[in-house]
Each structure stands twice: as structure tokens, then as C-alpha cells.
């Protein structure tokens, strides 16, 4: 039975990314850097209107512009355009500037229709319809127990409305790909994607060829966060244009504005919540009416109640359509919203009860909250995990010394506050992925799989596992991913890459080692069972006998190649975590500064401690942006986004980043569960913990995210009855 080594040399240590230096020095070629000989540049014409019909479109003038080689119309006559940023056509030209000029020469006659771009516009009875059938789709409430009755009997009830805006992914590398068609039978694409396999499938589909005839390459890429799974219409059109242009490569990457408009977003969330508890702080019931918008795509639902044990609850969610870009999965879809609303209501309840926020959380964990253990059928109770994590986090933030009840945080204008929030996530692996491992006579080792590294460190992790088994250094391994023609690999979503890919990688390396031993044992005049590998040496009966390189020469002409498959017991699913925030709020200006974040996270067996920590840091920073800064601002009158940039769409700079303390909750029990993904969970609780710390500091809930001077001052003003 496959098992992780009991005393690993590499697994669990900090190994720098194999491609870290290349990335940091600019040597790494991102898909958007790749320019094969003869590349044409594609630029997208997109709708300037939030709602319109194309009455006519005329590309004749554009076609005659200098450098123009091809135009594909996506939205022809009669087509509906449902949001600013909806695709109309793509022009391919010799230079990007020529393509941009030509896009402006396409004449489109629009019938501009009334729009709604905000939830309040859309929910108005007289609002124009985004789709036939109404703008607000209200699902029937999900009811557990008897919430109304229980709430009536509760000793304390809090009621509040909390809201979080739409935010966008802001991937540093925009969406897009460069496609090169070979006749109509083959395509190569350099794509910025988190799923080379999906992109290959989509390109194959639109050409009616086999995915095997499509090669999608993603050597490295600059962020996806859930928004880069497909080829998208831009990528498919790039391939079509390449075919049209005699096989010249066509590069289509979005610009920053289009990224905000058309490449996905995290839906908004508003929740009207009633939460009741008994005097001792035990929750008895929750009634929540929520809504959110995923633009023209939907998908705004989110988990609520969240984490805590509620015997009685009612939750009704309404999906509100607006004429704005469609939502896409974004780092732990739904969870940050559910977490923020749940944790805010719970904190308000604790404040009303005069109870310590950590204590009320411990009190309301389910007695049994089972998640999967290491093997099929085994379980682990998450409740004691949460308790241990809270204890550790409270110590690291200095809760006992620093925590003061809400509103009792000093007399100066700058108040300090502490907040806490809990989260959970899955992060399990898929069971059908493969890795191949090849040992060559020159001593080189190559592993291959059609997965990709979206920044989690997948490349390095697979090299570490292989090096662990073969007694080599991670840098000795050629870790070859980001190629759709390799053995089937996992798409990077749901924090599943490492748990999906580590087991087959371990299997491949282990099988290759066994085959290697069998091959070289005769040359060393011994039996395979006497052989082991360590420190770049082949050991016979515990004695270093021959260097790895020399031993490989004994393979003669033939390489060893083994393909590993998934095996049970090496990965698991279901994590918890908690985060604490310490903030300073200037009560005269409403400016919030986060001073410190403590993030405690379990995720089973950690392979690379360094990239693992980077994931948590990145998650926290993303969550801090959600908590303090980000907001897509739509103009109700013109229907356009007002801040499709990186200036008034606000994101933290270096000086906005606080001290961040990351701790893995990695007990023996956790390690025995095997690998679990960590990309998403550490971004969930940050915005919730920050908002709770702000409320703790200033003595009043700021119900609307982000915690901007405007929202904070408005909340303070309403406390003083000035609103």
C-alpha cells in the first residue's frame, strides 16, 4: 500500500520554487510574453453599453486598415449585448496598435436599451428585464428545525443587514492566449490558464478535432483565482483567426479594463440576519434573507449558516441579475461572503451578551463535525481542531492581554481592536489523474503531467516528492507540467491540485524506483531488495556504493518510464482554520490600518512548507483587500464600470500590509490524513476578522464592506444619530 515516508528528508521542509529565480528576474516567459515568429495581435471590440442590440455591424473600413489580417465578428446583427464589455468582434493585425486602430474603425449601430447595473436598480419593480423571466429569482427558504419559534424563545436576538460588494479577480497577467493553427487539424496554444486540459478540450471542440491534436502550453502563469478555466471566446476566436490567417499565430490578451469588465468577479452579498441565543451564548436560531448578484451569469449563492451549529435556521437567497459582467469562481467561491455575514452577526450577538468573541465561538461549534480522515471511511472531528486552533491563534495575537470589550478601546482618537473569524473548506483530490516519471541513462529525471502551476508551487511540490523517493535534490528533477498532451492532470480549482497530483506522483516515482532497482541490481551483483537511494547515491545494504549518475549509466540505452495513478490514503478533504486581526481605527478620519493578522490553518500533510506559507500569505492579503479596499463601482446612469483600473479600484500596496503570522496546524493526526489543498481556505476569514476588529475598536458595527473611511464614518455618524 502506498504511504508517505515516515521520516521524510524533504517533505515538510521549505524548498524555494524551482522557477522562483526565473520569475523574480523576469527570465520566465509567461504565456502573454510568448511571441512565436510571425505573431499577429488580436484586439477585442467590446460593448460600450450595458444593454443593447446590434442593429448592424460593418467591418469593411476596418478590414482595409493598415496591417489588418483578419476580423471575426462574434456578435453580429441582431445579437444582444448584455453588459459593458460583452464581446463584439476581434481584429488581428501585424501590430497591436494597428489592431487597436482597426477596432475603432468597425462601425456598429446599436439599439441602446435601458439597463440595470446595480442590485437596487434591478430590484426595482419597474426595472427593465436583464433576462426574460424577471431580475430577481428567489429560491424557497431552506429550513431546519423551527426557527421562528426558537427565535421567539431566545434570550437575546440581534438583527442586522450586512453587505459585501462585487469584487473582481485582478489577475496580474490578463486572460488570453496565443493560438497557432496548423491547417484545420492541429492547434498549439500558449495560454494563461489554470486548466490546460479544459482549454485544449474547448479549442478542440470549436475546431471539431480531437483534444489530442491540441497542445496547450502554460509554462508559468500570472494568476487565475478561479477565473481562468476555459479558452473563452477570446481564445477560441484567436484560434479561428490563426486558421483564417494561414496559420500565423494570433495573440489575444485582454487589457486591464476588460479584465474587470468581462473576465469574472466575485458576486456581491447582502444579508438581513436575525440571530438568537440563550443567555449563556448558545445559538438557538438564525433567520437570514440574502441576495447577491453574479451579473449576467448568476451564482451569487453562498453558504449560510456557516461553520457554527444551528439546530434551527431558515435561509432564503435571491439571485439578482444585473447588466454587468458575469461572476466566475473566485478563491473559495461563496465562503468569504458567508463567513463575513455569519461572523459579523455572531460578533454583534456576543457584544450584546457581553461575551468574549472567542468563547462564544467555542461554545457554538457542533459537538461532532466530522470530516474525512486519512482513508476512505475514517473520520476526524473538526471541533477539537477548531478549539486548538483558536487557542493557538488567541495566544499569537495576544488576546488575553489586549482584548477589551467592544467600545472600550481607549480614549484617544485612534482605537485598537481585535477580531476573529473561522472558516472551512474542502480541498480534496480527484482520483483519476496521472503522473509519469522517467529515469534516463544520463541520470536525468523527468516527471510529466497535464496539470499546471497557478502559483501554488505545483511544479516544485511534484519535484520534491520525486526527489524524496529517488534520494535526489528537487533541482535534479525536471518537473514538466503545463502541457495538455502529458498524462491527464488536474485543473487547478477548489484547492485540488496538490491533493490530486501528489498521490500519482508518489506512485510514479516509487514504481520508477522499483524498476530502476530491478534493472541495476545485476550490475551491482546484488538483489533489488538490498538497494536504497539517499544523498544522490545508490546504497547497497545500507552502504553508499555508487553515485546516482553512474548507476543510471548501467541502464544502457533504455530509459525507465512509469506512470503513477491515484491511491487511497495519501490525501484527504475537509479543513478548518481561524484568523485573528488587530486593527487601528482613526475615529476622526475613519481610516483603518490593519496591524497584525494571525492565520492558523490545517491542511493535512504539508509538502513544501515555503509555498504552503506563501499560499496563506497570499490568501490573507487577498482577504485584506476584500476587507479594506476592493469594490466594483457601477454607474447607474451610463451603465458602465467607473473604476476599471488599478487606481480607483483599490488594492493594497506594500505599506498597507501588516505583520502576518502564519501557523500550520499540523499535528501527527493531521499529517496522517495525507495531502489537502490550501489555495482557498486562508482567504476566507480575513475580511470577516478585520470587520469584527473594526467593530471592536470603535464600538459600532460597520455593516458594509469594504472598511473604507466612507463606510466607517457613516457607521460612526449613525451611532451618534447623525445619519
Amino acid at each position, binding site marked *: 500500500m502506498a504511504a508517505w515516508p515516515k521520516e521524510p528528508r524533504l517533505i515538510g521542509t521549505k524548498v524555494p520554487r524551482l522557477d522562483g529565480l526565473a520569475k523574480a528576474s523576469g527570465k520566465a516567459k509567461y504565456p502573454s510574453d510568448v511571441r512565436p515568429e510571425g505573431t499577429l495581435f488580436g484586439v477585442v471590440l467590446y460593448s460600450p453599453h450595458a444593454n443593447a442590440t446590434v442593429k448592424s455591424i460593418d467591418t469593411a473600413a476596418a478590414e482595409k486598415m493598415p496591417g489588418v489580417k483578419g476580423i471575426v465578428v462574434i456578435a453580429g446583427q441582431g445579437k444582444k449585448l448584455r453588459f459593458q464589455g460583452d464581446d463584439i468582434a476581434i481584429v488581428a493585425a501585424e501590430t497591436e496598435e494597428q489592431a487597436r*486602430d482597426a477596432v475603432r474603425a468597425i462601425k456598429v449601430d446599436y439599439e441602446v436599451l435601458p439597463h440595470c447595473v446595480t442590485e437596487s436598480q434591478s430590484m426595482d419593480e419597474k426595472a427593465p428585464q436583464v433576462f426574460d423571466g424577471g431580475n430577481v429569482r428567489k429560491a424557497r427558504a431552506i429550513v431546519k428545525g423551527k426557527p421562528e419559534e426558537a427565535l421567539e424563545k431566545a434570550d437575546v436576538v440581534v438583527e442586522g443587514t450586512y453587505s459585501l460588494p462585487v469584487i473582481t479577480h485582478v489577475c496580474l497577467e490578463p486572460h488570453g492566449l496565443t493560438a497557432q493553427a496548423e491547417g484545420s487539424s492541429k492547434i498549439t496554444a500558449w495560454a494563461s490558464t489554470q486548466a490546460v486540459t479544459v482549454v485544449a478540450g474547448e479549442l478542440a471542440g470549436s475546431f471539431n478535432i480531437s483534444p489530442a491534436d491540441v497542445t496547450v502550453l502554460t509554462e508559468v502563469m500570472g494568476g487565475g483565482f478561479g477565473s481562468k478555466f476555459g479558452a473563452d471566446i477570446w481564445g477560441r476566436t484567436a484560434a479561428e483567426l490563426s486558421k483564417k490567417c494561414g496559420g500565423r499565430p494570433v495573440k489575444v490578451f485582454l487589457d486591464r479594463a476588460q479584465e474587470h469588465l468581462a473576465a469574472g468577479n466575485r458576486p456581491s452579498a447582502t444579508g438581513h440576519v436575525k440571530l438568537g441565543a440563550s443567555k449563556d451564548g448558545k445559538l438557538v436560531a438564525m433567520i437570514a434573507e440574502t441576495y447577491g448578484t453574479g451579473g449576467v451569469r448568476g451564482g451569487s449563492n453562498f453558504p449560510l449558516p456557516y461553520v457554527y451549529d444551528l439546530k434551527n435556521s431558515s435561509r432564503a437567497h435571491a439571485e439578482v441579475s444585473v447588466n454587468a459582467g458575469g461572476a466566475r469562481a473566485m478563491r473559495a467561491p461563496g465562503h468569504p461572503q458567508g463567513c463575513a455575514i455569519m461572523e459579523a452577526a455572531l460578533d454583534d450577538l456576543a457584544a450584546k451578551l457581553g461575551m468574549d468573541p472567542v468563547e462564544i465561538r467555542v461554545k457554538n461549534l457542533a459537538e461532532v463535525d466530522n470530516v474525512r480522515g486519512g482513508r476512505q471511511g475514517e473520520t476526524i472531528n473538526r471541533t477539537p481542531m477548531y478549539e486548538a486552533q483558536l487557542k493557538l491563534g488567541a495566544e499569537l495575537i495576544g488576546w488575553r492581554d489586549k482584548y477589551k470589550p467592544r467600545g472600550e478601546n*481607549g480614549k*484617544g*482618537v*485612534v482605537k*485598537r481592536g481585535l477580531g476573529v473569524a473561522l472558516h472551512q473548506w474542502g480541498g480534496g483530490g480527484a482520483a483519476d489523474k496521472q503522473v509519469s516519471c522517467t529515469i534516463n541513462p544520463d541520470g536525468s529525471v523527468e516527471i510529466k503531467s497535464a496539470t499546471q502551476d497557478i502559483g501554488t508551487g505545483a511544479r516544485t511540490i511534484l519535484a520534491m516528492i520525486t526527489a524524496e523517493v529517488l534520494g535526489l535534490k528537487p533541482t535534479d528533477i525536471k518537473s514538466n507540467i503545463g502541457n495538455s498532451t502529458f498524462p491527464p492532470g488536474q485543473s487547478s480549482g477548489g484547492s485540488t491540485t496538490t491533493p490530486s497530483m501528489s498521490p500519482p506522483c508518489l506512485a510514479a516515482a516509487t514504481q520508477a524506483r522499483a524498476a530502476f532497482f530491478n534493472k541495476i541490481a545485476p550490475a551491482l551483483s546484488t538483489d533489488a531488495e538490498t538497494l536504497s537511494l539517499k544523498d544522490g547515491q545508490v546504497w547497497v545494504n545500507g552502504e553508499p556504493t555508487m553515485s546516482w549518475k553512474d548507476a543510471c549509466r548501467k541502464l544502457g540505452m533504455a530509459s525507465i518510464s512509469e506512470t503513477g495513478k491515484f491511491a487511497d490514503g495519501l490525501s484527504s478533504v475537509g479543513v478548518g482554520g481561524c484568523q485573528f486581526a488587530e486593527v*487601528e481605527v*482613526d475615529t*476622526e*478620519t*475613519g*481610516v483603518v*490600518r490593519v496591524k497584525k493578522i494571525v492565520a492558523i490553518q490545517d491542511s493535512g500533510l504539508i509538502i513544501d512548507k515555503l509555498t504552503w506559507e506563501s499560499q496563506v500569505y497570499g490568501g490573507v492579503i487577498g482577504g485584506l483587500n476584500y476587507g*479594506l*479596499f476592493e469594490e466594483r*463601482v*457601477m*454607474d*447607474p*446612469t*451610463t451603465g*458602465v464600470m*467607473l*473604476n476599471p483600473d488599478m*487606481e*480607483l479600484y*483599490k488594492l*493594497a*500596496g*506594500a*505599506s*498597507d500590509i501588516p505583520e502576518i503570522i502564519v501557523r500550520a496546524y499540523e499535528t501527527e493526526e493531521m499529517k496522517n490524513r495525507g495531502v489537502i489543498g490550501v489555495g482557498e481556505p486562508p482567504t476566507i476569514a480575513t475580511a470577516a476578522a478585520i470587520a469584527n476588529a473594526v467593530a471592536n475598536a470603535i464600538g459600532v458595527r460597520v455593516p458594509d464592506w469594504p472598511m*473604507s*473611511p*466612507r463606510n466607517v*464614518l*457613516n457607521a460612526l*455618524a449613525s451611532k451618534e444619530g447623525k445619519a
Partner: protein
Amino acid sequence: MKAFDYAAPTSVADALKLMEPPHTAALSGGTDLINRMKDYVSSPERVVYLKDIDALESIESSSKGVSIGAGATLAALLEHGEIKKTYPSLWKAAYEVATPQIRNMATVGGNLLQRPRCWYYRAGNGLLALKDGKSLVREGDNRFHAIFMTDGDALFVNPSSLAVPLIALGAKATILGPKGERTVPVAELYRVPKGSQERELTVQHGEILTKVVVPATHAKNASYEARHKQAHDWPLALASVALEMDGQKVGSARVVLGAVAPVPLRSEAAEKAIEGKALNHESATAAGDAAVKDAKPLSMNAYKVQLTKVAVKRALLAAVGDRYWEEG
């Protein structure tokens, strides 16, 4: 962007000849102009690059004050010892502009003459953002817009952080044009446009701003900027003060507000409130309150009234070394 002619003269005289109105734009650091060109908000036919003109770059101090060339970068301004020592209001305002990278490129002239960041203007709706006779700003998202002079159509805010302390310090700008040279108080670089055809700048097409002279002063001066982020961000409200002290009391005061009106706004009410008073929390608070007496916020920016009050109060106290908000 639209294709354009490009010239890079090395003397002011040559530059002036090349600056033929009306479709020519001066280019200094380009941190504002180039963005507008990319977004087709501005599409000049000729761009005249001024940064090869050494004469525009110098910063010179004398007993009369300091003369700052329009081509001096914000980074150079920050490195100038005399500015840091005598004009902390200017130094601080410049220090808080954008990022080190932008300050390395951006010039004093470009900063003073940059166009408003109003997101309706930058989205191509014109400076006043009027549509079918209605103001998009008034009807729409005006969280960053003006809270003063809001009865008119110009609801954007003047974007220049440097203009605010320069006006408080009584600085004068020198402009060179086809008709010769003129020198005006910095405040007079700006106006409230009366109609869609008018710019908010008084500098005419074809003219070049050559320098700004800040007079020598003993005034205690300081700036305070309220902003959302610590890293590069725009002020939500900015106040600069220059105070001629009369013993323990404020003799005469200049209080100027930024980011709250279509022009940098002198607050005579705040000046009056503080003149003749000893500077302390009470008098500074009163001056802050006086500063916003005439504020008329729009639908979403009442919070800026509070920020303006606080900015005035803090700038006043900072001028006498009281930075109480940093003590917690």
C-alpha cells in the same frame, strides 16, 4: 491612442515655436497625459516633450525664496534640503503623491496642470459630465467628488496636491507664451469652468509653465492629507496651512483645501477663525468647523465634510508640532 507628431526640443524658445495651438500638448513626465491619450480622453496631434530642456529642471534657493523649475521631478523636490526645512507643507504634500516610481517621472509643472481624475470625465463624458442636461456626477456615484461649490456644474475636484501648499505659501507661477511671459499667483492657474467648452486651467494652449517661485517665509506651515490607503492613493481631503505667528498667537493665516472643490480652495472662514488665537485643540477644531460651514455635499460624499474638518485641524496642529493622532 491616436497617432501624433512628436518633438523633443532642447530649448524653451524652440519648444514655444513647436507648441502651436490648439492641438498640441506639452509632455513632461507623461504620468497623466499618456493615460488620457490611451483612453482617448485627449488626442493631441502633436506632443512636445519638455524634459530635454535642462533650463526647466533646476531648483534654486536664494534669500528671496525658492524657484522650482516646471520640469523638476517630484523626487528632486523631495530631495531638496531647503524645501524640506522651510516648506514642510509642500514637502509633505509631494511626499504623499502616488508612488516612488511615479514621483521619479512626474514633474511639478505636470502636477499643477494635470487634468481632473473624475471618473466620469475619464470615461469620456466630458469635463462636466453632463448628459441630456443632467449631471452624471450628481445623479451617480460621487463619493470622491466636490463638497464645495456644488451648486454649479463643475463637480470634479482639482487633483493637484502641490497646488494646495503652494497657494498657502503664496507661490507664483511663470508662464511663457507666444505673447511673452506672465507671472500669476498659483491660485490663478485654476478656474471653475463655466461651460463645456471651457477648461479648468487658465493656461492657454500653446503656453508653457516654466517655473514656480515660493517666497521666503518664516511662516509655520504644514499639510495634512486624509486618504483611504497607506500606499499610493489620492487624498480624500487635503489641507495646507501657513501661519505667521505673533508671539504665541496666530497673526495671519492661510488655509487652503484640496480634493474638495473644482479648484484648490482658500478657506477664509478657517483663516478668520484661527487668526488672533493661540493654536490649540480647541481653536484648531473651531477652525476646522468654520472651514466646512459652506460645504454642500452631494448624495454620497457627506463623509468628506468630516474629513475636511479634520484635515484643517490636523494641518494647523501639525504646524506647531502637535501630531496627536499619531500617539493613539
